[in-house]
């Protein structure tokens, strides 16, 4: 099964070998980029249909099921519709910036894919400071949002863009701090080394994988990361910029047709890339969970895609259940709850790493209790404080006598 695992790597090596000597570098580059640019928009297409169908099932109804088998060609119908729509540019708009905004968004989202390892030896480029590069490039999305809002010369679009940027910047901090916990634990910014540090398992027969999510700080970090990632990519319950029932929303109100589709695509690509980073950081990357023999038959990239699909399903589930947060509540949540929790998480990582050499009987239990307690106490206190300060809470009702 080694062959299946490395099939893409060997294919690429063979193809590059076919190309004459002077062009091999360029061929290698193109062959690294092309799969990413083909596979992930393909996953996007399937996700749009799957999301509609899954949301439908959550709401006790069928999703789209007329186009193609079980509706799985719906993306083609939607794509055709979007392409054939008229591209309207407002008369007063800044035309260059208006055109470039979706392009910048798409490019930043795609650039971030280059450092993620999708399988064993399957990464586009290996940078020693890969995580740093990822977040630096990801910040380009915020610039694109502002470009979209500013160039539309529309009061509402500008206000919406400013709110969206405020939201995205506020949630960068917990995102980075949660990722920083992993960097502290492994001592490296290289995604490949982070994945390698999560190899194997512990416990009897190595039944519990060494993934960071199965440690107290990793669990908390993963949850913080996932919530901050939802806010970064404007997913429900943080989708205020795209809400239809809000009047001042939508930095892309002035976009139609293919440009709107590009925004949509770039948003989903951003979601996928940040979920991929979550997989790499916390869920063990492309490692199989169990050391059983049949796990080795499933190739590493399949495990990666499986984990990615689980996270995307989690996001769809959240979208179908939770109502939206208002902008000031969103910001409060980020600064007063997520940021302190992320900082405390860093302390817990330090405690965990410091207490690793403890070897006496029951040390493991003590470590766990200490770290879980260090996390749970602030969580409960902060949570209660946040709710109680605004006097939010369940109430009892009386009846007329």
């Amino acid at each position, binding site marked *: 099964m080694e062959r299946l695992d490395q099939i893409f790597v060997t294919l690429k090596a063979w193809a590059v070998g076919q190309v004459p000597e002077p062009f091999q570098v360029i061929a290698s580059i193109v062959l690294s980029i092309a799969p990413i640019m083909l596979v992930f928009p393909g996953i996007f297409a399937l996700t749009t249909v799957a999301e509609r169908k899954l*949301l439908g099932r*959550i*709401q*006790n*109804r069928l999703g789209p099921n007329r186009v193609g088998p079980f509706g799985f060609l719906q993306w083609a119908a939607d794509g055709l519709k979007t392409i054939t729509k008229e591209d309207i540019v407002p008369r007063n708009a800044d035309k260059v910036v208006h055109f470039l905004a979706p392009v910048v968004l798409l490019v930043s989202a795609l650039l971030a894919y280059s450092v993620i390892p999708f399988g064993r030896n399957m990464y586009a480029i290996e940078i020693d400071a890969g995580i740093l590069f990822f977040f630096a490039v990801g910040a380009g999305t915020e610039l694109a949002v502002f470009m979209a809002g500013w160039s539309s010369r529309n*009061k509402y679009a500008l206000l919406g863009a400013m709110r969206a940027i405020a939201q995205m910047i506020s949630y960068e901090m917990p995102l980075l701090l949660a990722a920083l916990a992993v960097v502290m634990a492994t001592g490296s910014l290289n995604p490949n080394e982070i994945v390698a540090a999560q190899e194997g398992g512990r416990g009897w027969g190595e039944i519990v994988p060494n993934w960071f999510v199965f440690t107290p700080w990793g669990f908390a970090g993963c949850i913080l990361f996932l919530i901050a990632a939802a806010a970064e990519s404007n997913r*429900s*319950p943080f*989708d205020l910029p795209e*809400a*239809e*029932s*809000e*009047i*001042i929303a939508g930095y892309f109100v002035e976009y139609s047709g293919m440009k709107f589709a590009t925004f949509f695509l770039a948003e989903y690509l951003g979601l996928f890339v940040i979920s991929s980073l979550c997989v790499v950081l916390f869920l063990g990357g492309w490692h199989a969970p169990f050391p059983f023999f049949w796990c080795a038959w499933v190739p590493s990239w399949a495990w990666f895609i499986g984990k990615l699909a689980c996270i995307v399903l989690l996001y769809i589930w959240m*979208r*179908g*259940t*939770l*109502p*939206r*947060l*208002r*902008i*000031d*509540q969103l910001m409060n949540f980020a600064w007063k709850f997520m940021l302190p929790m992320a900082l405390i998480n860093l302390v817990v990582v330090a405690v965990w790493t410091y207490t690793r050499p403890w070897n006496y009987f029951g040390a493991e239990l003590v470590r766990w209790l200490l770290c879980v307690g260090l996390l749970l106490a602030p969580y409960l206190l902060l949570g209660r404080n946040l*709710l109680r300060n*605004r*006097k*939010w*809470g*369940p*109430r009892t*009702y*009386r*009846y*007329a006598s």
Partner: protein
Amino acid sequence: MTQRLDVEAILGKTPAPEGSGEPGYTVLAKGDHRHEIDGDLLEVAMGPHHPSTHGVFRMDVALDGEDVVKLKPVFGYLHRNHEKIAEGVSYLASMPYTDRLDYFCSMTNNWAYALAVEKLAGLDVPERAEYIRVITAELTRLLNHTCLIGFLVQDMGALGTPLMYAFREREKILDLFEALSGSRMMCNYMRFGGCRVDLPAGWLTAAKDVVDRFGGFLDEYEALLSGNEILMARTQGIGVLSAELAVDAAITGPMLRASGVNYDLRKVDKYGIYDRFDFRVPLGDHGDVFDRYMVRVLEMRESLKILKQALKEIPDGPITSPKAKIRNFKAPKGEAYGRIEGPKGELGFYLISDGKPQPYRYRVRPPSLINLTILEDMCLGHSIADTVIILGSVDIVLGEVDR
């Protein structure tokens, strides 16, 4: 910036009123100097085409930053001359038109009208018909409240999940109504002096089954919504309505009870046979959106209690009064006001008769319209995102507001 054309002045018909064409003319009252120093206000029309305004309804809002400074509701887009039509057709022919007033709850509309005419003509209603009326009215209350909660949470952005669950349960009740009256929504079921047709075979068992399952559905619904922190954050403390203001503004229904005023027409007027049933009236303390939501949930549970009692105690017997006539019904001269506790508030019909087969004056007291007048006071100072939620909690149906 385009200049507003003053058409009247151009055509020379009437001189343009003073101050017209200035920014803020349409929205700020003259002499309202509250915000002149702070600079421009942003005027927004949440227009008739809007996914969250519960129908064709417009709100002219003046915003200071993001806070609402003035709000003017504009309705009339669905006016259908209901009251004038009623002056031209017979009393019976108005009955199908009352279905279409509050198109969610047609049975209660029918009952209110039938009550008014029965008061006018002095008709008695037999026992079995009264029980059937109570059963259909409480089923309607269940329908209305679940869907309202669904719409409220949909406006908050939950993408319609609770709404779809509510509609799934509503379908069961609508099937019951179809088996009983022939039509799911526009029932046209009550007649003066009773009901139109008796319960078909097996209806009581089906109704008992629906009522028994509804309790379980309510538990699921509450598990999904009532403890949700995001819902609490978005609805508690929003749109507070004090009890004094509510009573002064003639608010009725769950909105009034959520502000803490104990006024339920089923207990006050005791119309029909409501004094035979054992149920309580839930009251809220804060008067905000969350209280209105919870009062409705608790009212649904009380309705289930009433339904269980009524379905058990319903007697046999005739369903129309022997004195009632279908054709050539002439009410004696006089006036009458019949009102019921509809799901949205006090629904009243005021009839003046001069002895002819058509009423002389027919007036509907729509609870949605009266409850809507207080919208501005509730929304002042909140952000515009909350305006949509407050409107959702007022529970309007444009068919009733505009008639």
